[in-house]
Each structure stands twice: as structure tokens, then as C-alpha cells.
């Protein structure tokens, strides 16, 4: 018996690291973006994409909420916003 032992190329895509995110996620304001791509380069998950100015965004299935993109953005055009768990949001509603 071997178990999940060997990783073939591309298998890390199955690992949805978005589940690691706690408390906050990046919000791309899309106002002052100069398309410098610093956010794309610094993202440890490589989950930020975009081409033209003000088109950049991240894939929340993989975003771990580390905040590196908001920290590096020279135009402060990304901010970390509080993210509530589904349970907390539901409690608030009630």
C-alpha cells in the first residue's frame, strides 16, 4: 500500500490553498493601477492575473491572504479587507 506518495507535475493545483485564508483577503481597487505587475511577481501562489491597467485580480481558490500584494503595490491600489467566515456572516444576518 502506498497512499498519496508521489506528485506528478501540476498536482499542486489540486491543493486549494484558499482554505488557509483567515480573516482577510486582497481587494483590487482598480483605480490607480499602472500595470507594473509587482503583485503578480510577489504572490507566493501565483494566483494573480491581469494584463491592462486596472484589470488585475486574484483567484480566491488559491489566495492564502498573506497580504504581500497589498504591501508591494506602489500605488496602494490593493487593500486587505476583512473577510468573515460563512458561519459568522450567517450569525450576523440572524
Amino acid at each position, binding site marked *: 500500500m502506498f497512499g*498519496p*506518495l508521489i506528485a506528478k507535475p501540476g498536482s499542486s493545483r489540486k*491543493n486549494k490553498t484558499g482554505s488557509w485564508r483567515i480573516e482577510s483577503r486582497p481587494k483590487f481597487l482598480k483605480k490607480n493601477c499602472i500595470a507594473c505587475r509587482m503583485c503578480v511577481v510577489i504572490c507566493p501562489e501565483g494566483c494573480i492575473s491581469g494584463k491592462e491597467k486596472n484589470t488585475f485580480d486574484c483567484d480566491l481558490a488559491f489566495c492564502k491572504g498573506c497580504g504581500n500584494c497589498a504591501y508591494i503595490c506602489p500605488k496602494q491600489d490593493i487593500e486587505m479587507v476583512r473577510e468573515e467566515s460563512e458561519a459568522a456572516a450567517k450569525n450576523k444576518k440572524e
Partner: protein
Amino acid sequence: MREFLEGSLAVARIVKACKPGVISAYPITPQTHVVEELANFVANGELNSQFVNVESEHSAASVVLGSVAAGVRSYTATSSQGLFYMSEVIFNIAGMRLPLVLTCANRAISAPISIWNDHQDSISLRDSGWIQFYTENLQETIDFHLISYRLSEDKHVMLPVMVCMDGYTLTHGIETIDMPDEGKVDSFLPPYKPLYKLDVENPLSLGPLADPDYYMETRYAIHQTHKDVLEIIPKLALEFSKVFGRHYNGLIEEYHTKDAERVIVAMGSVCGTVKEVVDELRAKGKKVGLLKIVAYRPFPAEAIYEALKNIPKVAVLDRSLSLGSYAPVAAEIKAAFFGKKKKPQVISSFVVGIGGRDITKDSIKEVLRLVNGREKSNEFIDLKPELLKEEYEQ
């Protein structure tokens, strides 16, 4: 062919016959002669193998991890502190499910420094996922190297094997050995065909990050495989006997246990001394016997239960300690009988031969005398109480 050989040289000869493509090791007493002789074979062109000289045991283990991951049969040997320095890599080799054979020349652990024999080094790594054999004499040692390579590379196993031979007693002892000829070795041990290997044409990762969603299953799989290994070892031993004519059970060996009233359980070279005592006492009509444990990992609890369930008095010899708790082998023998209806009246635990303290026939007779009394736990044999008077007070 029967030859008169030193243990280390005999191991080097059998490893040569197994044709490992890569050998890497760092010298440490009492393992040194093994790898020294292998280095000679490579230098003389008698063995077509890469002998990788390294600066430490951590590197030696890392080299063979890498070479076996690349699909090449590999070999290393070490002892004591060297095995501990390898330990991080030892767990990795098992975790990556890489087949490898390592000879451990059993030696005590510092401090204080001791180059002499006990089992503390390999016993301390019993939970690493490696299969462990403890051998009694040189013939068994070399035969189990052959069995170990077959077992390790079995596509249902793919786990590393540690052949544990007592330092000095076996590594430097000289015996007449029936050295298997290389033709027979080739028929028993075909070239290694890896199930998976590092290959640029077909890339894969071994030992990558496994988060809590994945890790537990990899450990469960090793544990289940160890249970399968308990079935596979006796089959391989049978196949071995068909080729080489020497018979092993592979898990345990019973010596005059069937009608015995007192049985000693032991591992390694001390079993030879115990057999001498059993023969002497049997000649006088005393019903004594020996149960030798050969495979310590996986632990053959079922076979041990069957062998000992009708024995009134059992004495377990440990040549290592779990300081502050029960001696390792004794604890597991007792666990094998927990909750069972049939069991010995007494399972006493004795600690012998730590740090190379000589285990004489008198030591064994003392154990057999003490097992007649009430149950003993961690009873040290041949202890010198006069050395315990030292105190340091201000």
C-alpha cells in the same frame, strides 16, 4: 564455497555479489571494515559501482537516498552516532518508499563514549518505517542481506531494510561461511526494476509537502505494508532455501521451545550463547529453550504469541533501554499477550550486555535462575553496585 572470513569482509563480499550501482558511507567503528573492503573492490575494478566519498553520515544517507530515487540499487552501512546523524534522512528514505539495504554494526550510544556493542542505536530508530533484522551469526547475516534486497525491492513492499549485526561479536568475529556463488545470487536477486524513479523525461516529485489532507494516509500505508511484510518474509525465506539450501523462518527461530518450561527471548549474537546454555542444561534434563526474534520490524506478535502461549516462564533479554520505562523488547512481548487467555505465568524482563558488558554463560544461567522467582521488570544482570556509590555534593 566454504570460507573462513571476518564478518565485515563477508558482508562486503555479499554486498558485492548484490551489485549495487552506488555505495556511499562514512567510516565509523565497528562498521569501517565493511566499507573499506567495498572501496577496495571498486578501486580494484572487481565491482562496477560508484563509491561516493562524503564528509558525514548525513551526506552518505542523502547520497543513497538520491541514487535509489534515481532508480539505482544502493548500499550504505553505519553504526551508533553515525546512524543517529543519518536519522533525519533515515525517516525520509522510508517515507519516500525507497528500497535500500543498510548494515548497522550495532554499537552503544554516547555519552559516555562507548565503541562497544549493544542495540541502542538501531532500536532507537525502530519507529522510522524501516524493516529491521537482527542476526545471530555470520552465515545468517550474509543470507539476510540477500533476503533484504529482495524484500526491499518487492513491488508490494518498497521499504528500506536495516540488517543489524552486533558490533565486534559479528563484525570482527571470524567464522566458516558458505559464501553463495554469484550465479545463484543473480538468480535469486534479479536487477532492480524501480516502480518509480526520478527521470527528466517523466518528471515527478518524491517527498513533497503533504498538508493535513494527505499526510496521515502516507503513514497508514507504511503501517499496512509492514503487516503485509509479515506474510512476505516467510515466503521469501522459503524461496531462499530452495536456491541456497539453508532454511530460515525469517521472523523468529524456535530452539527447543516445544516442551520447555523456561524460555529465553533474545535478539542478535547473544542467541548463540543462549543456545550453548540450553544444550548444556538440556543434557542435564532441564526443560529450557530459546525464542530468537529475527524480524523486529515488523514485529511478529502473532508468531511470538503462538510460540510462547503454552510456556510457563519467559525471560526477555534486552540489549537496549527506554530509560524511565520498560525495556523495548520486553514491553512488546508483554503487549503481544495483553487480553489473551493463554499466556505465560511469568514474563520477566532482563537488561544485559549494555555498552559491551560481556554476556557469559553464567549471565544466562543467572537469568534462568531468576525467572523461577516472581516477575522481574528491567532487572539488570551483571551490574556492579560498587560503581554506583559515586556522589557529587557541594
